[in-house]
């Protein structure tokens, strides 16, 4: 969605700016109070009437339900609806939701949030249209093309309207495509580690693409979905490799076009980040770490050395575990330095997952089952309380520091 004028990011920036204006003598303390009061007033309205975010959430859920409903309607009446009517329904629904959404949001301007959700619905219906047309005409030739066409078809819309929801949908469709297309290239179906490594490197490249969008205002709004999808792909893939995968290769020559594509994407994104990216503290560290790791992993995947995951000191599995732990620590530190609650939250989620996984690895055989569960549960509860308090303290400190005179 486009940036909400009264959302938290804006308020935070405003307060920061006002401090500077006050220091420069542009703004008196009284004026500052009055401006802040204005936003408190809006806060209050939101509290009473339901926040913009809530309206947005409800209408997005509505869009998804309508989209699923249209799909089910066509599927359930498959034989009764003639081919042209099926196509008519698809095109009419697509045009109507885009058209009405645009009209509500930009022409009439009376229901901007509902309008935005209708445009998201249009993007879902477009994807549904691809699959329904493939179904009507029995096109099953190369099915990864479906999500590819979906992702690419709605990407221009996300950029034109600066819709984060549509961008997120597009990125999800494209990541689905990545896995499907890769499986058409990997000859050994049971060798899944190369696909995990592929997602890992692609995730980091997408993350850097997010950094590249953090520069000037119009593109900044779109960095969020890239960073989110990149972070989740990176950490989920890296987490899978902390287990005993018993496999030999990180990559396969069959995936060479993908590695090259990822490296090109990374190079372009890194260049844009260096030229135009955000200059917040820590951006250099983040960019350097991500680029090094992506290039390194791609290189290892291309040359694909044997990765015997057996026991032994400094086995690859141990290295992946150390790397993953360092990655979590790094992400949380970055979140603190760059003031990104998202980094801290995702870092903590994967920290907890890692603790659980390693606890199971090490103690499953050693402890009697009942004791294993009781002890594990206690550790998790205590750890959860500790982490939650820590997380809140850290997130609050972002606000507090800004409120200091």
């Amino acid at each position, binding site marked *: 969605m486009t940036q909400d004028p009264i959302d938290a990011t804006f308020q935070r920036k405003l307060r920061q700016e006002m401090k500077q204006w006050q220091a420069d003598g542009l703004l008196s303390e009284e004026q500052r109070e009055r401006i802040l009061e204005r936003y408190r007033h809006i806060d209050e309205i939101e509290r009473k009437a339901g926040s913009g975010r809530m309206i947005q959430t409800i209408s997005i859920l509505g869009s998804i339900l309508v989209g699923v409903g249209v799909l089910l309607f066509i*599927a*359930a009446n*498959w*034989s009764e609806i003639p081919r042209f009517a099926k*196509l008519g329904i*698809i*095109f009419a629904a*697509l*045009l109507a939701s*885009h*058209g009405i959404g*645009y009209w509500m949001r*930009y*022409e009439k301007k009376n229901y901007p949030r509902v309008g935005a959700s209708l445009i998201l619905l*249009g993007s879902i219906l*477009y994807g549904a*249209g*691809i*699959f329904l*047309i*493939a*179904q*009507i*005409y*029995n*096109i*099953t*030739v*190369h099915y990864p093309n479906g999500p590819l*066409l979906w992702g690419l*078809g*709605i990407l*221009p*819309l996300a950029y*034109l*309207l600066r819709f984060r929801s549509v961008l997120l949908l597009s990125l999800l469709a494209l990541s689905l495509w990545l896995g499907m297309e890769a499986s*058409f*290239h*990997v*000859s*050994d*179906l049971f060798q899944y580690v190369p696909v995990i490594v592929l997602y890992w490197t692609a995730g980091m490249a997408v993350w850097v693409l997010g950094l590249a969008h953090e520069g000037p205002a119009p593109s900044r709004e779109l960095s969020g979905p890239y960073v989110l999808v990149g972070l989740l792909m990176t950490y989920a893939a890296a987490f899978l490799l902390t287990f005993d995968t018993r496999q030999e290769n990180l990559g396969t020559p*069959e995936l060479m076009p993908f590695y090259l594509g990822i490296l090109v994407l990374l190079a372009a994104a890194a260049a844009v980040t260096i030229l135009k990216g955000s200059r917040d503290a820590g951006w250099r560290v983040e960019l350097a770490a991500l680029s090094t790791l992506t290039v390194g992993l791609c290189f290892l995947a291309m040359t694909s050395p044997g990765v015997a995951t057996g026991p032994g000191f400094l086995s690859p599995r141990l290295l992946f575990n150390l790397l993953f732990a360092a990655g979590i620590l790094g992400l949380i530190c970055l979140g603190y330095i760059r003031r990104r609650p998202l980094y801290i939250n995702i870092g903590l989620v994967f920290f907890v997952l890692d603790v659980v996984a390693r606890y199971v690895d090490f103690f499953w055989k050693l402890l009697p089952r009942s004791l294993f569960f009781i002890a594990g549960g206690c550790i998790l509860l205590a750890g959860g309380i500790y982490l939650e308090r820590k997380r809140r303290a850290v997130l609050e400190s972002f606000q507090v520091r800004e409120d200091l005179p």
Partner: protein
Amino acid sequence: MRLKFAVVILLQILLLIGIIGYRAYWVATGEHILLQSAPVDPRDLFRGDYVTLAYDLSTIDLDRAGIRGDIRRNDRIYTVLQKAGDGTYRMASVGNTVPVGGKFLQGRVTRVNERATRFEVTIREDGAGDRTFEPRWFSFHEGERVILCLDRGGRVQASLREKEDARCRSGEAVAGTVTAVKKISFRQAAVEYGIEHFFLEEGKGKAMERARNARDLRVEVALREDGRGLITGLFLDGRRIP
């Protein structure tokens, strides 16, 4: 802004129409052939009911086809087709290089079994000569009396020990004495041609499954010159399924 929005939406519409046009062009320019098929599996939640169609050309004996060297998943396979007496096209030969001339289907290896087995069984029929069969599995020995149940294509569906109440449920039955049993191990590849799925309305999948056993299901395919096929229709007992 309004114009740009319209252009972007137009792009989506054009992409969708493009898919339809692509298919229409394929159907218009491709040659239409009939393949004998058997559906296998029932439904997919996302796409409603559909049948998975298997063909005789879906599993390939690499040794018999004379394909040497390493065959792996995702390798291309070219199946040369020949018209049979009943109007359908059958597999004439298989290779991993593009054939020169003739009709052929282009497929993709999905699975390779390096140690598949089949049996070569010779039966001396009562009052007739020897006949050789190739059942998937055979557990009898030389000298034993057996009954083989054949399907319409002459393939062994089941083999039974000859007893008073033993009889085949359908198809032709061959009774006789086993004179030779040979177990042959070979390399087998499962191949996908992109003509394995046909979408149906809810509830029709079951009827298709029954048709599989009767083996009277034919698939009309629009075949491009590069060997890629696209299903244009399904015929059950000679009648087109809408």
